[in-house]
């Protein structure tokens, strides 16, 4: 049963390692060196590389597809609010905030262990089966 106030089972991720960032760069196609090359990060005045925002959006995507069949997801959007440092531990959460015309709106948040909110967003999900 999906109703206003329904909370999705949270998805807690392990610490984001440099290996994960290297693999995600290759797998996703996001090759911006600021995420994988310490020399580039330092040349930009940063102390270290930081995680791809799209890695967190992919994790939130796992939260969604772990909850409903993917073909029911009609739209999905996020705003990137803060960077995710190396070794940070993100947790993905979602809450249903509206149900109307066979569609549910889910508010989505990624929060680090220290309380920093790194992503906010929402998805619109159909309540009933549709064709794959």
């Amino acid at each position, binding site marked *: 049963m999906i109703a206003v106030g329904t909370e999705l089972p949270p998805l807690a991720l392990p610490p984001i390692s440099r290996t994960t960032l290297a693999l995600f760069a290759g797998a996703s196609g996001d090759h911006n060196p600021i995420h994988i090359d310490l020399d580039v990060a330092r040349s930009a005045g940063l102390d270290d590389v930081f995680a791809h925002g799209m890695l967190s959006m992919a994790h939130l995507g796992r939260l969604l597809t772990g909850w409903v069949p*993917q073909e029911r997801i009609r739209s999905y*959007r*996020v705003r990137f609010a803060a960077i995710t440092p190396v070794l940070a531990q993100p947790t993905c959460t979602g809450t249903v905030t509206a149900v109307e015309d066979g569609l549910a709106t889910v508010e989505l948040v990624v929060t680090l262990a220290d309380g920093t909110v790194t992503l906010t967003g929402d998805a619109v999900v159909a309540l009933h089966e549709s064709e794959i």
Partner: protein
Amino acid sequence: MAISPDVIGRELPAVAVDVERGRLRFFAAAIGETDPVFSDLAAARAVGHPDLPVPPTFLFGLDLEASDLTALLAGLGVDLRRVLHGEQSFTYHSPAHAGETLTFAPRIADVYSRKGGALEFLVKETAVSRAGGTAVAELRSTIVVRA
């Protein structure tokens, strides 16, 4: 250096991209996906997929490669080290699967600045379709450039 608003409406060349099973498995592993539907063909078919499904955000990377955003930004005089991803959205029309060839048609939808020019924003929209023209998805990426 300010991005010229003259680029608003510019259409970038449409690019056809093959969706590969191996790449989808690599992506699933990189994001820690544990649902076998995204990596095991038998598991995907058992729930009705014709092949491995393209997960919700995977199209972003193909779009990035297809539209060569890096070269575009460099051509506009943007220092990539000053680029942040501000917002990203997807609208889904029909599921895509491994084995399909998808066409990415990107355009620059908007350019604007905030905070007296300290932050510049570039919005790119990409329509994704398959052979025959069926709509698969639309992507909207907002890129932030720090002055």
